[in-house]
């Protein structure tokens, strides 16, 4: 889960993250329930939601393949992968 919203901290009635998220990822349907991260795999990891949350209820958690990326960079340039991972 890339975006973690702490329901204990989230402020009732606030909709900032829902409106500010540029990707339509976060939905606050009801003012009483905390927002839902509806399309996690479409997140930009911009941090705009966390940055603008008035009570710091949002944490950005980078998934393993971002933090500890093992992709062979050569494959991003149309070159064949090397057998040994270089990272």
């Amino acid at each position: 889960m890339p975006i973690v919203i702490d329901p204990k901290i989230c402020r009732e009635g606030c909709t900032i993250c829902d409106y500010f998220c540029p990707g339509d990822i976060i939905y606050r349907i009801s003012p009483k329930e905390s927002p839902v991260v509806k399309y996690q795999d479409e997140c930009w990891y911009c941090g705009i939601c966390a940055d603008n949350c008035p009570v710091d209820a949002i944490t950005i958690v980078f998934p393993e393949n971002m933090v500890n990326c093992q992709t062979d960079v050569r494959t991003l340039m149309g070159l064949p992968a090397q057998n040994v991972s270089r990272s």
Partner: protein
Amino acid sequence: MASLATNLEAQKEPIHVLETDVVIVGGGVAGCLAALGTTEVGARVVICDKCGLLERAGSVGGGTDHFTAVLEEGPEWDTPEYLMSYMPALLEGVADIEAVERLVQGLKPMVHLLEKLGVDFHDPENPDIPYYRHRAFGMPGAYTINFDGTNFKHIIGRSARRAGAKVLERTMVSDLLMVEGRPRGAVAFHIRTGDVYVILGQAVVIATGDANRLGKNASGHAFDSWHFPYNAGEGRAMALRAGARLANMEFVDSTLSPKGYSTQGLNAFVGGGAHFINALGERFMFKYHPDAERGRRSDIINGFITETREGRGPIYCDCTHLPEDEIRRLVNTLGVDRPALPDFFAQKKIDLTKEPFEVCVTEIASVRGGQPFRGSGVHIDKDACSSTPGIFAGGDCSTTSSGIAGATVMGHIAGMNAAHFALSQPKAKPLTSNEKDQIREMLYRPLRLREGISFHAFEDQVRSIVTDYVGYRREEIRMREGLKMLRTLRSQEDRIKAEDYHGVMRVNEARSIRINAEALAVSAIERKETRDGAAHLRLDYPKTDNENELRIIMVEQIGGELRAISRPTGLNPTPPPKKDIS
């Protein structure tokens, strides 16, 4: 399971018809200034954006920190004429120079207009100077204004709203309405409720930004992109369908980024004094540009690619030689453009003072081939008019652009000229109810499909083809193979399925991504040379060919197929005598 017919019956999304003069597609930087331009002329305007709030919509909704401008404050370099004397050399002889000149002339008045709207161009670290300016890499003067642009987008969005623009948020434009080769408005829908909008107007401004999600990245998350992943080149796709031309599509953009996270930050690192080193521990960038890390971005990418291809990767970014204070300052500024970047380093547990970190080239994007002032996309003239009368464009979807500065100036010009055009035309005719029903049916077909493929699966195929066949390993045979595959993929477009209205938005984006990729391939095949470092890197034509290739390559859609045409630029790319632009 409900039959197709009952599904259709059950879902009769309401259709709202709006009448206006100018429809603006995209409410980012260019779109907001276009709205202001339109209202100044006295025309009515509707502006649509997919984002939730106009004041936050687009690439710089999270904030911005620099604006490039000529201000005529006194120094020799600070005039439009001086900058223009370098322009053919800066743009390597490939640009629409009249349009570029219009942009450059418009910078100073734009700074003043933005100040009137409430933008404060003071640098927080240098509050006593009206404009804190520095020289960006490769530029012949200190044109870059550093400022705290946290509220920049908020201010221009609010101004557009206050000027009387009708704003439709969370509303995606799916296509333009055309009649006898002229715009009649646009079709849009609400990405949450599904309400359909038929917006009738006599002129259109396309301001949909750049095209992303085009190539593979290191993390494998499609939306982990250096630029704004929700700009998928839709305006360019609409322009092609409406008969307008694209240009400069062969040039691609990318940057170097911490491996696994495609993000802004390169400028901050190299500006702060970081070095790139290869697996042998060599500081190698001097081989690719005399200013090494401070060279043009496309040369830096070229250096990265060549070192990796020749077996000297991985490549690292090294800050360990910098004073601790400088590193701390650096880390603090990283969050300005990308608030989550400091979190990334924290989660990676990287201490910049102690160890270098691995960097990686980001995915391929289509913005402006790493150049200021020249863009890729809808081909516009100095009046921001496309090759189809009534369709105007501004910002990163178009061929004359340059960050927020270019988007404001050309967006504003597009808005004003669209207004003049619209007011000179008879009002757009209303649609029959039959036509409206057809529009809804076409729009929501992906929702009514019982079987199909996901937009993710479709896009992954495009990204693989772009990366493997037309990305950084450009050779005639491979590119032709890639182009064939991209054309074959078109037949799958009708099978991309959506689960909800948000998903319909992604289906439309996926289709635009494919056509942007096709335009890229067609243009890259046509340009038989290497130009602008990694922006157009051909293995079979490794040299720049100023004899034959000083031309603008354009793409148009004829009978469903894209084809390239070109015209000479007539520019001389040699720098003016005795002036050093490196």
